[in-house]
């Protein structure tokens, strides 16, 4: 018998927090570690006018997971390091269907998210000073990028990023919302979880409390509001291997 309130929810219940015009964060790295089932829900429900904060638009070549949000015209503004990893996001941007005010160097983007999740106002970043502040580079910015000098070096003042809803992807989670990640899909999923007013984790497997050793918890339960069942690990392996084969990034098994 459970002695705690379970955070396990149906995808529909958890994702109903994402409404038209929401500001959302999604965990990933060029399509790896994406919450594919939650993304499918957004596509099914055609939730629109989203401000999407995410590392990259997604899988190189597109036609996969998050890239379809751009294809379906659901993203109003992208806050990211890149727009060009998927053709769908490139097209939405170049055809003026999606706003990208500026690109952030990846380390800057990640620190802005971390600042948001850790209760900071922002961070001071030296990368790109003298380059990204060049006049006219980002015409959609309302004001020039703010700078400050500390000990003789110039830094950008980069404001923290937070979200209405953060959606991350883990390997497995328990009912308390403790999440364990596999290998390189750790990324900055925990920081994204912390930066959300409401945070959903999609996992391959939901396990009893106590299954995940405390030291293996990559994102502690208090940062998570909803745990939803995604593809099983086996299904996920199959989905990625098929996409890699299609993209010529993996040699198919001998017939």
């Amino acid at each position, binding site marked *: 018998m459970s002695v705690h309130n379970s955070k396990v929810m149906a995808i529909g219940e958890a994702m109903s927090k994402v409404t038209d015009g929401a500001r959302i964060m999604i965990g990933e790295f060029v399509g790896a570690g994406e919450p594919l089932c939650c993304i499918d829900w957004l596509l099914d429900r055609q939730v629109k006018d989203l401000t999407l904060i995410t590392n990259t638009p997604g899988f190189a070549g597109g036609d996969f997971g998050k890239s379809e949000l751009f294809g379906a015209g659901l993203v109003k503004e992208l806050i990211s390091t*890149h727009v060009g990893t998927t053709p769908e996001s490139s097209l939405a941007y*170049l055809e003026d269907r999606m706003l990208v005010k500026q690109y952030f160097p990846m380390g800057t983007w990640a620190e802005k998210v971390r600042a948001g999740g850790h209760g900071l106002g922002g961070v001071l970043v030296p990368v790109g000073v003298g*380059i990204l502040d060049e006049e006219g580079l980002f015409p959609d910015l309302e004001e020039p990028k703010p700078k400050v000098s500390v000990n003789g070096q110039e830094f950008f003042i980069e404001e923290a990023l937070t979200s209405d809803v953060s959606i991350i992807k883990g390997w497995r989670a328990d009912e308390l919302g403790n999440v364990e990640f596999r290998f390189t899909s750790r990324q900055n999923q925990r920081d994204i979880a912390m930066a959300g007013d409401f945070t959903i984790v999609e996992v391959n497997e939901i396990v009893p409390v106590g299954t995940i050793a405390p030291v293996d918890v990559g994102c502690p339960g208090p940062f998570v509001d909803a745990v939803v069942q995604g593809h099983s690990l086996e299904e996920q392996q199959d989905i990625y291997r098929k996409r890699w084969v299609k993209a010529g990034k993996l040699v198919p098994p001998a017939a």
Partner: protein
Amino acid sequence: MLEFNIQEMSAREIIARRAARELRDGEVVNLGLGIPTQTANYLPNGVNVIFHTENGAFGFGPKPDHDLADSDMTNAGCEPITMNPGASIMDLTTSLGAMRKGYIDVTILGGLEVDTQGNLANWAVKRNGKWWPGIGGAMDLCYGTQKVIAAINHTEKNGTPKIKERCTLPLTGSRCVKTIVTDKAVFDVVETGLILREHAPDLSVADIENMTDASFQVADDLCEMVLF
């Protein structure tokens, strides 16, 4: 000794083979996408390096066979990789922090333009009046890495030189490139500008001048490109 014929080699292979010779045993190395990634195939004998991938690993290894490809073990291009003994995995902010702080010894990057000051441009071109496609981790690498090697085709497909007096596109890093490796030549970037160190066989200094949009000095010990 095996005989190799540079004339029969693709530009990509020439660049990758030559760039690989810039790596030293024990270095922590980050390879950009495209040609730089290929340099891993041509490490000289006795040179063992630790490959870093910005999504969060030191010490990754080659692509696995199909059935061992793991959806949660990927490189910065979301391609399947393996982990060598001694590998380590970290979160994204640690990985990018390592790049800014200079824990990566050397990076080999592709480029759209590189110039006599060692400025590198590789993140943006103008399309429909907008800068595209984006920055990713390249600026963090250029900012923090001591040894930045630009591995580029000497010219665009239409013959336009990629080595300029000054870059015209938005920069990825300023004064960061130390060595330029192309399919035609190798240059060092020093305080006073470019120094031509090696040339492809059958190309004269004048030939290289004709395909380069920048002035350069010629090293006293100028030699043919060493690929093996």
